[in-house]
């Protein structure tokens, strides 16, 4: 207490000065509108800054609680995912004429030229050969082999596949292939020389291969490649998604799939 008194005595002049200044400022702020508004604006800014800082600290201290909430939310989402996996049924879109069924990739393509993908369900889930496979609404591949519980899928990321695509919604139709080198670059071959496009244009499925409806997005144009002959050119296309990291897929099949398959067969030789 004595030390405090000594401290006050030592700084008595400064304290008196500060006291009188505060008193003067109080009189000023109380009677001057401009000073008052400036005072409120300054103190308001400081208060907002302090409150923001407090909020940051509060958030930091509530981190454990937020983590716990997120973990609970994560568990709920996993449960939903599991129920989707086990109770998947064909869902029909009559206006489009196609039906869709959820599925899962057991093995994704690894970027090697001939690697296949393995999906589920198989024949037990009413999956058929030649069904199209989508991933996140984009073309992924088609079913080429069928087991009871699993299917073998020929992905776009395989040099053996050829996919009928269209440049833009109404552009030229050309086959899309992969040369087995860069997983982020496909080739749209034999594009007619008159076809108009520019980098960034979307490439869609044409629907002519009967595996996909028309208008399913496949990728975007990167650039024009070397001309293949005098009448055609090559266009390089980037896929819309990373095909090597896909987990959730959708099998897609036309409602009149059997009829279309039969009628699309070549006529028997006379």
């Amino acid at each position, binding site marked *: 207490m004595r030390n405090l008194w000594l401290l006050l005595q030592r700084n008595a002049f400064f304290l008196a000065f500060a006291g009188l200044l505060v008193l*003067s400022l*109080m*009189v000023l702020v109380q*009677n001057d509108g401009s000073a008052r508004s400036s005072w409120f604006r300054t103190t308001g800014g400081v208060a907002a800054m302090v409150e923001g800082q407090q909020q940051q600290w509060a958030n930091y201290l509530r981190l454990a609680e937020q983590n716990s909430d997120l973990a609970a939310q994560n568990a709920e989402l996993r449960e939903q995912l599991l129920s989707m996996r086990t109770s998947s049924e064909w869902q029909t879109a009559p206006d489009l004429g196609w039906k869709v069924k959820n599925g899962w990739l057991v093995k994704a393509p690894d970027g090697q030229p001939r690697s296949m993908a393995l999906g589920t369900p198989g024949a037990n889930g009413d999956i058929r050969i030649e069904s199209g496979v989508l991933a996140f609404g984009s073309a992924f591949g088609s079913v080429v082999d069928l087991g009871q519980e699993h299917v073998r899928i020929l992905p776009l990321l395989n040099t053996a596949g050829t996919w009928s695509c269209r440049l833009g919604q109404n552009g030229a139709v050309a086959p899309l292939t992969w040369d087995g080198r860069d997983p982020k670059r496909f080739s749209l071959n034999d594009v007619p020389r008159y076809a108009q496009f520019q980098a960034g244009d979307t490439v869609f499925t044409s629907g002519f291969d009967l595996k996909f409806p028309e208008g399913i997005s496949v990728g975007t144009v990167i650039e024009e490649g070397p001309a293949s002959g005098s009448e055609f050119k090559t266009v390089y296309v980037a896929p819309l998604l990373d095909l090597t990291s896909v987990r959730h897929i959708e099998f897609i099949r036309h409602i009149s799939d059997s009829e279309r398959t039969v009628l699309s067969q070549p006529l028997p030789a006379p």
Partner: protein
Amino acid sequence: MNGLRLVLLVALQALFLGEVAPFGEWSRPQWALWALLMLPPQLGPFTKLLAGFSMGLGLDIALGSYGHHMVAGTILGGALPTIHSLFSPRDGYEVTNKPTVRDLGTQWVIGVTLSAALLYHLALTLVDTWHAHLLGAAIWPALTSAVWTTFCCLLMHLLVIPPGRKNSSL
């Protein structure tokens, strides 16, 4: 005597002398400062602080500018001991020294007066303006007014206490 001088100068400024501004805002004098600067430099810091505060309070009451002169006067009263020590002679102030040209020299009187006037006018401009974006334009009239106040104080000095006189009547 000092208290009487302070009251008289505050009243004179409020009633007549405050309007002696030949260049308008650019030369707004603060005559009452002279009364504050006539305080002997040997006085204690508390007396100077209280004198500055009282001068501001008196001006605010007389002029109806609540708080403006109080803030500026308190700042000047608080800084006056430092100003006096900055301009003190090498051997310090003698007990009989008065803040006059005869006792402390022209240089001392002009230096202290100009420093005090600058501080007072800048403080006054700060509390008059308040907003930072208006301060730039207001600072130049404050500087010229400080020079004008210095001139007025020196004039008062010469009129009331000519360099040849030993003591003033006020």
